[in-house]
């Protein structure tokens, strides 16, 4: 993770892509969102979605996984160059999540994150807060998910 001071508004990063399989869609839905259109091809075909599609929470959680993997790769590279690595803190929440289009079996979603705003934490001097817009686009270039989240990032002065 970059230090808070090194994060610039407007920076946009491609964090990775993921292909959603029928098996993974159904396994996720069985645990957390067992609605028929996420579990069963025939029922999904009769629904307004028209075919089996992923729970929106599955699409969102996969963004988180790719974000963590992205930062891990970046941190390895920084350590390789002998540079210090900042800690990514927890998040107080997110807003404006839009599941714009369904994610169907076999869709490959490319996720990206853009820095919208940075500000120092009023109560935690070692931390800053970044506001980011996160998006996922399918293989046809269509937006499928978008949301705005906030996360704590360590300040360089804390290192």
């Amino acid at each position, binding site marked *: 993770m970059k230090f808070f001071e090194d994060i610039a508004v407007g920076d946009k990063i491609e964090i990775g892509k993921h292909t959603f399989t029928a098996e993974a869609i159904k396994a996720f839905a069985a645990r957390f969102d067992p609605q028929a259109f996420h579990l069963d091809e025939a029922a999904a075909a009769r*629904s307004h979605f028209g075919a089996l599609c992923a729970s929106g929470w599955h699409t969102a959680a996969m963004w988180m*996984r790719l974000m963590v993997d992205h930062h891990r790769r970046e941190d390895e590279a920084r350590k390789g160059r002998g540079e210090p690595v900042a800690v990514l*803190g927890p*998040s*107080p929440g997110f807003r*404006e*999540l839009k599941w714009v289009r369904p994610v169907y079996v076999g869709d490959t979603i490319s996720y990206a994150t853009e820095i919208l705003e940075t500000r120092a934490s009023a109560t935690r001097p070692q931390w800053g807060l970044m506001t980011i817009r996160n998006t996922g686009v399918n293989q046809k270039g269509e937006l499928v998910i978008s949301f705005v989240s906030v996360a*704590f990032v360590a300040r360089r002065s804390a290192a």
Partner: protein
Amino acid sequence: MQESVSKLHWEDFAPGRSFEHGPRRIERDEMIAFAAEFDPQPMHLDEAAARSSMLGGLAASGWYACCILMRMCTDAFVLKSTSMGAPGVDEVRWLHPIRPGDELTLRATVLDTRASNSRPDMGFVRFSFELTNRAGVKVLALTTSLMLGRRAPGATAS
């Protein structure tokens, strides 16, 4: 279909109506398995690393909290309804860490409803959802609209 008649339709969600569900116990193994798959940060995976984090100890991924809320909603009323999914989530606030062994209660309250302009067969119901632990501390607050099938299709906006 007899089944669809008894289901909760859009018309059944009057503002102020609320549903409660739970408590549901947060199992350590499932919480960590979720983190390993979707949010493998040390504060969600490793007790020692989590102790020195801002969360002060092993805590659930916020996405796991959202997924638990979703599952509790499906068990409470979504599977008994004409749910057509949700267009998104207005706001999520992760208010307090969720620990292994926590027992969480869901409260879902209908805020308001509106017909769909483009689809006479469905309407939107905006909910406030809250998860509260045994100590009475609110851990998650989520506001969103669900899409539900209507018992009596309305007129389309012309």
